[in-house]
């Protein structure tokens, strides 16, 4: 190789980016060309100078703590599955007992479930409950269709990383609800109140569900009746609809597996979350309007 061919490649040669053949050719040239050797050594001195750059950065525990705080990592041990349906149900509806006006509802729900499930288990007799208006049941066992957005690569995905795909997250998932009858759009605060009780749901569970629905109705009226005109309800309609989707999915699971206590617990938890959300909205509006 001649110097004119070697010099332009010296940077890549220094970077270790050349293939075996050109690298060997340059090595052979350097063995006999002082001018190119000096150019090569100059590059080496540059690198040595750059290596003395001291930024004084020491990322450590403080940064880690800040990261953990941001991602809200919970380091608590894994909670074991509830030992009994009653204990978990009592925990789920516990918040209702904290609100005096809901004590009768919560007490009734607990009593109904406690007695009713025992009886139901003994009899194993499914009870038919008529459909109500509002959210229609579907006879097809379709489950929510969850798919990532068309642009699967998020903004942080490298341009040439076919193996890296932005994972679906609640913020980018497109959730298709099960096929239902078309109904006019309704505020999410009201939608749950009209949920249909499917025939597969055990009667005591359905009864408890009705108590939850009653609580949701009351809270919805509270939120709407505030002087702000239910502004919070309008703003938070989207997340409330998300909670309704959760309730629907959980109910579907109970319909599919009515004997599964976990499915029942999950459904109660979904209702509990809606109640909790509405309680917060009502408290927020009360505090804000003071």
């Amino acid at each position, binding site marked *: 190789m001649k110097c004119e061919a070697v010099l332009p490649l010296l*940077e*890549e040669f220094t*970077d270790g*980016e050349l293939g075996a053949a050109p690298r060997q050719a340059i090595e052979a040239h350097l063995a006999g060309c002082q001018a190119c050797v000096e150019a090569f050594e100059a590059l080496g*001195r*540059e*690198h040595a*100078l750059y290596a*003395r*750059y*001291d*930024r*004084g*950065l*020491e*990322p450590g525990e403080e*940064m*880690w703590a*800040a*990261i953990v705080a*941001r*991602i809200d*990592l919970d*380091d608590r041990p*894994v*909670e074991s599955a509830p030992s009994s349906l009653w204990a978990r149900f009592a925990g789920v509806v516990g918040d209702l007992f904290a609100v005096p006006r809901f004590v009768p509802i919560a007490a009734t729900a607990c009593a109904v479930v406690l007695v009713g499930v025992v009886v139901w288990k003994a009899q194993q007799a499914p009870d038919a409950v008529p459909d109500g208006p509002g959210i229609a049941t579907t006879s097809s066992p379709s*489950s929510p269709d969850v798919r990532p957005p068309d642009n699967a690569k*998020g*903004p*942080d995905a*490298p*341009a*040439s*990383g076919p*193996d*890296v*795909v*932005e*994972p679906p*997250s*609640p*913020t980018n998932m497109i959730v298709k609800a099960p096929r239902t009858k078309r109904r006019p759009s309704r505020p999410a605060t009201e939608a749950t109140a009209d949920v249909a009780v499917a025939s597969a749901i055990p009667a005591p569970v359905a009864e408890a569900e009705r108590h939850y629905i009653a609580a949701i109705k009351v809270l919805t009226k509270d939120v709407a009746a505030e002087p702000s005109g239910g502004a*919070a309800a309008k703003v*938070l309609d*989207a997340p*409330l609809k*998300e*909670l309704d989707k*959760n309730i629907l*999915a*959980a109910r579907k*699971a109970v319909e599919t597996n009515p004997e599964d206590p*976990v*499915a029942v617990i*999950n459904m109660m*938890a979904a209702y509990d*979350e809606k109640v909790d*959300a509405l309680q*917060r909205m009502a408290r*927020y509006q009360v505090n804000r309007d003071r």
Partner: protein
Amino acid sequence: MRLSVRAAARSTAPAVIEKERTETAVARVDHDAFRLIFDRYARPVTSFIYDMVGQRELAEELAQETFVRAYKGMAGLRDESKLSTWLFGIAKNVAYEALRSRRRRNYVAIDEVTEVQVRDESPLPEGQLLNKELSAVIESALAGLDDDKRTVFTLKIYQQKSYEEIAGITGFSIAKLKTDLHRARAEMRRRLGPYLEGVQ
């Protein structure tokens, strides 16, 4: 109000609940694994971002943001061998966002800083004083490069990334990054000339 966060983070669909029960145990392992990743990459990522933005506090904030985004997106990483490329890709995007944001706010851009501030901390041995001065000069010289050249230069020289890795991090073609790297070296050489002569 955190309703949307709760709704998004605590889906109570049974399938998800079951998955969460399993993942809760897994999450603890992931937490430990993520700590290992942090320990391995915190310094190089923060250094890279610092080279890009030139401000310590901002670099640390952006490094945090990088790791937070990485944690949230970790499940989507199919090939663990591409972790470094993926992580630096996030860091590069975070840094570019900050640079664009700073320019929109008409802050004094770091490439407008031409005066070298020599840190006056005495007494220091002559070698250390020279290093601090040199570091300030290198920092100023880096600030004088445009974003793309600075990115390529710091990834190659300071982070020791291969051309292929740099292409994966930046999305640049190999031809472009070679050109940018060559021009960055020439510019750095010009700015650090006196110091390079002193090294001979």
